[in-house]
């Protein structure tokens, strides 16, 4: 058994063998000027095309081989004709062939030779040929025959303007010699005529209509189980039909007017009336591709109107989208001469026709409807970039459709949701300015049709776009608008799923945090409103979100306070405003506290205190004190982990050390509180380190009473260090102990070198000796290595410092 493919190959090979033999004979006869015999062999060769056994592909190969050979015949005949050896009645003679396929191929070949030898005959001949081809009703054979007709007549189609008077051409033709014997007998027209472009249009359109009919007919042949194969075969053949349209587009005399009045109506009528989805889809796209944009612009209404009438199976969106893309491309080419004429309301036309199409197709899948809207929005954005209302109109229409279809909570994985998301992202990516989106009244409402996942994804896209483009959001209304749109990133949603990927969540909230930095009013007052609005929205974000979103707001508020301070000369109410800002911050941080966060509010309070200390507004000391005390409260009430405690106290102390706004009455209790807290830490090493840190408070801390100068309370410093030493001494772990000694030593050296006269060189020596004594007893491990190194570095420092005498201090008597 042969496979179908092998069988095809065999059949084709057999046919080709006949073709080779017969064409060889044909050429031999022609060489000997035996025309009639030559024609007989040509006819034999052509008889191979009568087969019903070949697949379209094999038939095509056979056709190509034969059409090559026919070229030879044509060349021979042309040559003979040019030498004046005309064969009378040749046009008639070839029509004696009993079988229609060879007859018509020969007739076309001879007809074209006649035309080429005498142009005045062409109008009649073309008309005759295209009519006679009706005899072949077999789809495959007919398609190829007519393709041959199209191919042969390619360069002889009349392409002259029509004569308005209508007289001249035919007058000339009276005098023309009548070359066509045999033709006159069956063509009624008594005047030979070279024809005009009008004749070519008629010719091609008739051929096109017939080919299309044949092509469509293929669909209805054979078993229904072969449907897929048949459709595949039809797709392989479509180019044959499309060539007609290509020919039409190649006629130079077809200008916009002719296209509008003659060409397009004929084509569309044929396309619509054939009622075949494959044909309609292909041919409509063909029309779009082969004719110039300028023509489409002038015929949009009729083209789109035809689209309305297409078969429901036609993937109409592809057709429309192809057209829109072409036109959008067209207007973008930027050439002045190629802009869309003002009088063509491109958008309105498309908009109306598309809604008509949608109305006419109740079964159209919603994703296709959305695809059409996507195309429309692309058109609006590309052709009318300034016309926001066009974009909004599309969104409105889309919303109406969804409302009508009763679609809601579109599953993010569904096609329609994906398509709609595409629609929503286009304005984002096109404007690269999220503020423009706010001008679209229907953008937000349309978002509501998505499910949570999709809404979130679009929101993220929007926010990222703002971040990438650093789009500054300057007004509270705009903040409100955007935050409403990106709701899923701001607040809990009613349709929010229980589980949300923690990492993704953090990432999204991170974007929101960054986004907050884009909120920036033009004036400080405006900025305050902006931040308040943002605060209002983010405040509702729930415990999981506010930790990401409120801190940036607080920081922004601090920045705003600094701004007011800078502008204090211009704004007399600045102090009041600053007070209000810190109240706002206090409240905001309070919200974080309520969310049972500790470290974050602690830091924010400390940061706030630092900022306040720099701003000399009324009451600022009280406010700063409040912030510090809040921090302390948090420390005391909420932090229980000893490591966290040490970290917190270190942070508090270092902040406090930097703050200069406190008078002694506030400074003293805070100082004391810090030292107390440090010495109350649970673990000895923590205590030790805490106390060491506190020592700095007494040295470089500042208070208002000293006009912002450092305290330089050497006595208290020494006390602290001594206390630290004592605590270290109580440590059981030797290596920790030695480490603490080294750290204390370093602090001693720091203060000594900074001019703390209360520190004695002797005490330094003492500590060094103690360390030296203990060090060797340590077990040798990574930890002790590090301690050794630390100590060695310290000693090296001292040795160098000793050599470089300084006015501030002297290491006389140091024994490193």
């Amino acid at each position, binding site marked *: 058994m042969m496979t179908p493919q092998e069988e095809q190959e065999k059949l084709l090979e057999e046919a080709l063998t006949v073709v080779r033999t017969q064409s060889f004979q044909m050429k031999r006869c022609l060489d000997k000027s035996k025309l009639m015999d030559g024609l007989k062999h040509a006819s034999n060769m052509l008889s191979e095309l009568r087969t019903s056994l070949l697949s379209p592909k094999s038939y095509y190969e056979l056709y190509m081989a034969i059409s090559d050979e026919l070229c030879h015949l044509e060349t021979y005949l042309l040559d003979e004709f040019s030498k004046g050896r005309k064969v009378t009645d040749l046009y008639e003679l070839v029509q004696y062939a*009993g079988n*229609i396929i060879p007859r018509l191929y020969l007739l076309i070949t001879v007809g074209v030779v006649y035309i080429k030898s005498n142009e005045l005959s062409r109008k009649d001949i073309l008309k005759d040929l295209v009519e006679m081809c*009706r*005899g072949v*009703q*077999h789809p495959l*054979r*007919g398609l190829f025959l007519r393709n041959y007709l199209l191919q042969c007549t390619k360069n002889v189609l009349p392409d002259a303007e029509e004569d308005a008077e209508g007289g001249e051409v035919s007058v000339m033709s009276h005098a023309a010699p009548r070359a066509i014997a045999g033709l006159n007998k069956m063509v009624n027209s008594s005047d030979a005529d070279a024809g005009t472009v009008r004749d070519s249009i008629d010719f091609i359109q008739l051929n096109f209509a017939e080919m299309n*009919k044949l092509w469509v007919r293929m669909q209805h042949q054979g078993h229904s189980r072969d449907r897929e194969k048949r459709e595949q075969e039809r797709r392989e053949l479509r180019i044959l039909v499309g060539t007609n349209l290509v020919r039409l587009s190649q006629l130079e005399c077809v200008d916009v007017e002719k296209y509008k009045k003659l060409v397009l109506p004929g084509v569309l009528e044929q396309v619509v009336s054939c009622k075949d989805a494959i044909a309609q889809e292909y041919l409509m796209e063909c029309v779009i591709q082969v004719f110039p944009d300028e023509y489409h612009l002038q015929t949009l209404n009729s083209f789109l109107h035809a689209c309305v009438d297409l078969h429901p199976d036609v993937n109409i969106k592809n057709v429309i989208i192809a057209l829109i893309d072409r036109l959008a491309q067209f207007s973008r080419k930027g050439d002045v001469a190629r802009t869309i004429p003002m009088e063509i309301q491109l958008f309105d036309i498309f908009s109306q026709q598309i809604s008509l199409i949608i109305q006419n197709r109740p079964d159209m899948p919603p994703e296709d409807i959305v695809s059409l809207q996507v195309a429309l929005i692309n058109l609006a954005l590309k052709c009318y970039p300034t016309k926001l209302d066009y974009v909004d109109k599309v969104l409105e229409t889309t919303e109406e459709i969804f409302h009508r279809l009763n679609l809601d909570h579109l599953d993010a994985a569904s096609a329609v949701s994906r398509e709609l998301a595409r629609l929503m992202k286009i304005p984002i990516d096109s404007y690269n300015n999220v503020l423009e989106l706010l001008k679209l009244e229907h953008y937000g409402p349309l978002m509501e049709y998505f499910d949570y996942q999709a809404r979130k994804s679009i929101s993220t896209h929007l926010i990222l776009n703002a971040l990438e483009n650093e789009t500054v959001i300057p007004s509270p209304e705009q903040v409100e608008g955007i935050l409403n749109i990106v709701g899923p990133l701001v607040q809990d949603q009613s349709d929010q799923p229980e589980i949300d990927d923690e990492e993704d969540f953090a990432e999204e909230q991170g974007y929101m945090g960054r986004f907050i930095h884009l909120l920036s009013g033009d004036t400080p007052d405006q900025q305050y409103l902006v931040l308040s609005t943002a605060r209002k929205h983010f405040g509702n974000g729930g415990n999981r979100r506010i930790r990401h979103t409120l801190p940036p707001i607080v920081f922004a508020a601090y920045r705003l306070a600094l701004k007011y301070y800078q502008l204090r000369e211009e704004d007399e109410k600045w102090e009041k405003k600053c007070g209000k800002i810190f109240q706002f911050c206090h409240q905001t941080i309070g919200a974080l506290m309520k969310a049972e966060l500790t470290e974050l509010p602690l830091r924010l309070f400390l940061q706030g205190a630092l900022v306040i200390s720099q701003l000399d507004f009324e009451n600022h000391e009280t406010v700063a004190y409040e912030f510090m005390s809040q921090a302390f409260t948090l420390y005391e009430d909420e932090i229980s982990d000893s490591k966290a405690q040490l970290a917190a106290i270190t942070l508090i102390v270092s902040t406090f050390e930097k703050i200069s706004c406190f008078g002694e009455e506030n400074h003293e209790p805070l100082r004391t509180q810090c030292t107390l807290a440090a010495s109350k830490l649970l673990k000895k090493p923590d205590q030790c380190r805490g106390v060491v840190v506190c020592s700095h408070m007494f040295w470089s801390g500042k208070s208002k009473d000293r006009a912002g100068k450092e305290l330089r309370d050497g006595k208290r410093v020494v006390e602290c260090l001594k206390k630290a030493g004592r605590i270290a001494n109580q440590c059981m772990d030797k290596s920790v102990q030695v480490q603490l000694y080294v750290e204390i030593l370093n602090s001693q050296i720091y203060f000594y070198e900074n001019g703390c006269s209360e520190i004695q060189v002797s005490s330094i020596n003492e500590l060094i000796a103690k360390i030296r004594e203990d060090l060797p007893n340590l077990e040798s491990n990574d930890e002790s290595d590090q301690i050794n190194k630390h100590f060695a570095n310290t000693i090296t420092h001292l040795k160098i410092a000793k050599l470089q005498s300084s006015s501030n201090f002297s290491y006389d008597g140091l024994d490193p």
Partner: protein
Amino acid sequence: MAEIKTEDGKKEKHYLYLDGETISGKVSIKLKKAGTRLEHHGIKVEFVGQIELYYDRGNHHEFTSLVRELARPGELTSNVSYDFEFNQVEKPYESYTGTNVRLRYFLRLTVVKRLSDLVKEQDIVVHTLSHYPDMNSSIKMEVGIEDSLHIEFEYNKSKYHLQDVIVGKIYFILVRIKIRHMELQIIKRETTGIGPNTFNENETIAKFEIMDGAPVRGESIPIRLFLNGYELTPTMRDINKKFSVRYYLNLVLVDEEDRRYFKQQEITVFRKADKVRKSVRNASAKFGSQDVAAHVQSPSSDHTDASSPRYEHNYIAD
């Protein structure tokens, strides 16, 4: 000169005459050997038009027979020639060679002798010309098989001359069968005999495919068939009550199961009379016996030929 088929299918060329044309010529009788004598009981030349039915060989039906006496009984001693003329002879029918019947015209020279006559026959060909018919309506007809095939066909004329072209179209009104192809045939029907002894002989002269594949409703298929290439004769109706030759166009549709659907329609074929005929130079045929050679020389019927002004010709010409 014109060609005509002989009974055995070969083609011969003979002088061509039209109805009413004078047939004239010269008979030359040559003696085989100079100095011999030929005794005879008279010499005559006859013009005969006859119909031969092949199944009845014995009976030839002469519908025309004219005699010209050339010489009274006597004796020939030297070569001699006689002019003869049949003035404006009526030749009502066209020469025809068919399957069962032949209609022929010939000149017969008879030298009557005591024992066996010397006879020489010379065929001529007669064409009957017709004017272009006044009435020549098209043939238009709707035919069909209920619920499966319904077509309308149209042939542009009902009467065609021999070099004519049949133009027409087939319009498909209803198609519920899968047609494979369609052809137009020209059928010649030769009818001989009368009454119960009638024989019909059908011959398909042309088979001409006019459609390939299956059309659908609404298709219109063009027909164009040139007649010039086929061997047609004019339609002959009831020639001398002996035979008829009629032509039919047979439209045949063949479906995928090889079933055939057809419709026959008679057309009239005629010989058009608008051409100026040339031709017919003198030529001679020889016949002879042991001792005689006779020669019938036919005339030129070319009226443009100034060298033979004797012969009058009557054309049925327009």
